[in-house]
C-alpha cells in the first residue's frame, strides 16, 4: 500500500510518501506566492524520488494552513491530528508532541495510538513561533541558521520579554545599545520563545515523553532552551519539519484501511 501526505505550510510545502508504513521519499519546496504550484512541484519530486507514478499512490491526505490549495487531496486532516500521529509513529512513547512552525506553535497531548486528547495553540500572535526567531535574528544582524549555535556559548545573563514580536525586537535593540554580547542576546531570544511554548505545555499538562517537531526543532538554540527549561528529555527526530506530512500520510494509510473494511 502506497500513501502520501502533503503539508501545505506557511513557509514550505512538505511531501512524504509511505510504502507499507515505511518512508519511501520526502521532498520540500518553499510555498512562495503560489503554494498550489509549489505543492505540485514537491509532489512530483517526491514521486520521482520514490520512483513511482501518481496513480500508484492509493490515497493522498493533505494538511496545513493552505490545505485548500493542495494539488491532490483524497482526504484532509488537521495539523493537530497529523502531528499526534507522526509523533507516536516516530516514538511510540510520545505523549506530548510540540510543533513549532513558521507562524504557529502547537502542543498536543495524545494517547498511545496517536489520538489527540487535548491541544493548545499559540495565541493570536506570532511571538510563539518561528517568525519570532527570524525577526530577532534580523535585529541582531545574524543569519537565522547561525543564531542557534551562537546562543550555545552564552551563560544566560540577560533576558527579554516575548509578549509580542514588536516588543521583543525593541527589547533586543535596547540590549544591543547596552552592548550586551551577541551570544547572550541570542540565548535570551530562545529562552523567551521557550517560555511561551512552556506556558502552552502547562495548559495541556506535561506528559512524557515529549517530542519536538516542526521546522524550528532544527534550531539547536531553541531545542537547548526548551530542554533547559522543561527539565525533561525532549526527543527530536531527524527531519522534524516533515512531521505534518508524515502524519498526513499515516492518516491516509488509516483511510485506506477503513475503505478496505
Amino acid at each position, binding site marked *: 500500500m502506497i500513501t502520501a501526505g502533503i503539508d501545505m505550510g506557511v513557509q514550505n510545502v512538505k511531501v512524504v510518501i509511505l510504502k507499507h508504513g515505511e518512508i519511501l521519499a520526502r521532498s520540500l519546496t518553499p510555498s512562495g506566492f503560489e503554494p498550489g504550484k509549489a505543492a505540485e512541484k514537491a509532489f512530483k519530486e517526491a514521486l520521482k524520488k520514490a520512483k513511482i507514478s501518481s496513480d500508484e499512490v492509493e490515497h493522498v491526505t493533505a494538511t496545513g494552513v493552505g490545505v485548500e490549495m493542495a494539488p491532490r487531496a483524497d482526504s484532509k486532516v488537521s495539523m493537530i491530528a497529523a502531528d499526534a500521529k507522526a509523533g507516536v509513529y516516530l516514538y511510540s512513547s510520545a505523549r506530548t508532541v510540540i510543533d513549532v512552525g513558521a507562524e504557529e506553535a502547537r502542543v498536543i497531548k495524545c494517547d498511545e495510538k496517536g489520538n489527540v486528547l487535548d491541544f493548545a495553540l499559540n495565541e493570536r500572535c506570532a511571538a510563539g513561533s518561528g517568525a519570532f526567531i527570524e525577526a530577532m535574528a534580523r535585529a541582531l544582524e545574524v543569519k537565522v541558521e547561525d543564531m542557534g549555535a551562537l546562543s550555545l556559548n552564552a551563560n544566560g545573563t540577560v533576558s527579554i520579554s516575548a509578549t509580542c514580536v514588536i516588543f521583543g525586537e525593541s527589547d533586543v535593540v535596547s540590549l544591543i545599545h547596552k552592548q550586551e554580547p551577541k551570544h547572550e542576546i541570542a540565548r535570551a531570544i530562545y529562552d523567551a520563545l521557550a517560555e511561551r511554548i512552556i506556558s502552552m505545555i502547562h*495548559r495541556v499538562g506535561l506528559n512524557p515523553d515529549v517530542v519536538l517537531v516542526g521546522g524550528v526543532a532544527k534550531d539547536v538554540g531553541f531545542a537547548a532552551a526548551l530542554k533547559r527549561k522543561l527539565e525533561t528529555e525532549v526527543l527530536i527526530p531527524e527531519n522534524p519539519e516533515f512531521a505534518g506530512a508524515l502524519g498526513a500520510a499515516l492518516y491516509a494509510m488509516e483511510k485506506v484501511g477503513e475503505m478496505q473494511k
Partner: protein
Amino acid sequence: MEAKSVGKKYIPEISQKEVEELKNSIKTTSTKIMAEYIGRMKKTWNNRPEAMQYFDEIANFFGRREKEIREAKEEGKKVIGYTCMFAPIELILAAEAIPVRVSSGWYDAAKLGNRIVPVEVCPVIRSTIGVKMIDLSPYLELSDALITTLTCDGMTKLSEILGDYKPVWTICPPRIKDSEQSMAFWKEELKTLKDNIEKLTGTKITSKKLRSAIELMHKAAKAFRKLQDVRKGNPVIMGRDAMLVNQTSMWDDIERWTRKTEELCSELEKRAQEKAWACPLDTPRVMITGTPIIWPDNWKLPNLIEEANPQGVIVVDELCSGDRFLYDPVGVDEWNMDDMFNAVAERYLLPSTCPCFTSEDGNENRVNWLVSKVKEFRVDGVIYYVVRGCMLYAMEYMRIKKALDQLNVPVYYLDTDYTREDTGQIKTRVEAFLEMLKSRVEI
C-alpha cells in the same frame, strides 16, 4: 457654533458628515451580513421549521421591531436600554417601559471605539462606544436612559462614556455576593434604580404592576426552559437557531416572544417524536462558555462550529447573551411589594455566574452551573470563548478547565477579536477540536 464635544467627558469631535458616511456603510454591510447568516443557518439545517421565520424577522435590527418601538415611543412609551443582564427587566416592565439590550456585536464599529479607548480594551466595549459615536444601533438610539452595570473594568468605564450621550443609571453589584451587607447594598442600588425608572416613566411601580411583570417573565422563562429541555435530547434544533431565539428575547415584545417560542417548541417536540433530527446523531455536542456572543455581527464562532467539517452542534451555552439570560425566574413567596422587590433583587444577584464575582471558593456558581449543564446536555466538549481584553473570563479559564478535566470533558480555549480576518485560523482550531471530539464519540 459651539462644538458638540464641549462639556463632554470623553467624546472627540466627529463631523456629522463622517457620522452619516460611517453609519450608512456599516448599516449596509450589516444588513447584508444578517441576511447572509440567516441564509447559512437555513442551509445547515435544511428542514428548518416555519416557526423560525418569526425570529429571523425580529433579528433584523433595522426592521419590524425597530418600527414598533419607534411607534410605541411616539405614543409616549419610554425605552430603557441596558448593557448587562443585571438590569432587572421586571422593574422596567412594571413601569410600562420597553427594555432593550444595547451591548454591541458589530465588528466594524469596534475600530471606531479605538479613537477613545486603546485597542487592548475588550471589543464588546469598543464596539458599543463605536456604535454610539455613529448612532448605528436603533435600540441604543431609542433608549431614553441606560442601565449600566459595574461588572468588569470595560463595563465600568463604558458607563462613563455612554454618559456623554444619554442619562445613565449605574448599578454596582457587590463582588462578593453571599453576605448580608452585600445583599443590603444591592437592594439599595435597585431601590435607587426603581426611583429613577419611576421618575422617567412617570409610572409608579405598584405591587399589582410588579406582580404582572414578574408573572410575564415567569412565562418567558418557562418557554425558554422548554426550549432548553428540547435541546437536552437528540438534536431537533441547531444551536445557532436556538441562540438566535434567545438573543431576540433581549429586544422583542416579551409576551409575543414567549408565545412564538412556545409554538417553536411544540413543533420541535413533534419532530423529536418523529425522530426528525436536525443533524446526524453522532455529531459532537458542543457547549460554548465565555465572553458574550452578540448578534448580528459576532456570529463567527457559532457559524464555524455548525458549518465545520466535521460538524458540531451547540447544545447549550453559558453566555449572558444566551442561555444564562432567562434561566433564573424570580422566586416570590408572598405577593406583597417588599417580598416581590426582594425576590427581584435576589434573582439578579445570587445565581449570576458572571466572572466579576468571587468568594472563598472563587466563582463557584459558574463552576457548578457548567458542570451540571455538561451532564444534563450530554456535552462532548466545551469551547471556552474569549475576546482579546476580556480579562475576567480569560483569567478564570484554568479554574474551569480543571473542573471539566475531572469530568473528562475536553475544553478548548479560543481567543479572538471583533474581526473577520482570523476566520481561517479559527476554523483550523475549531475543526481540530471537533475532529478530536468526533474520534471520542466514535470510541
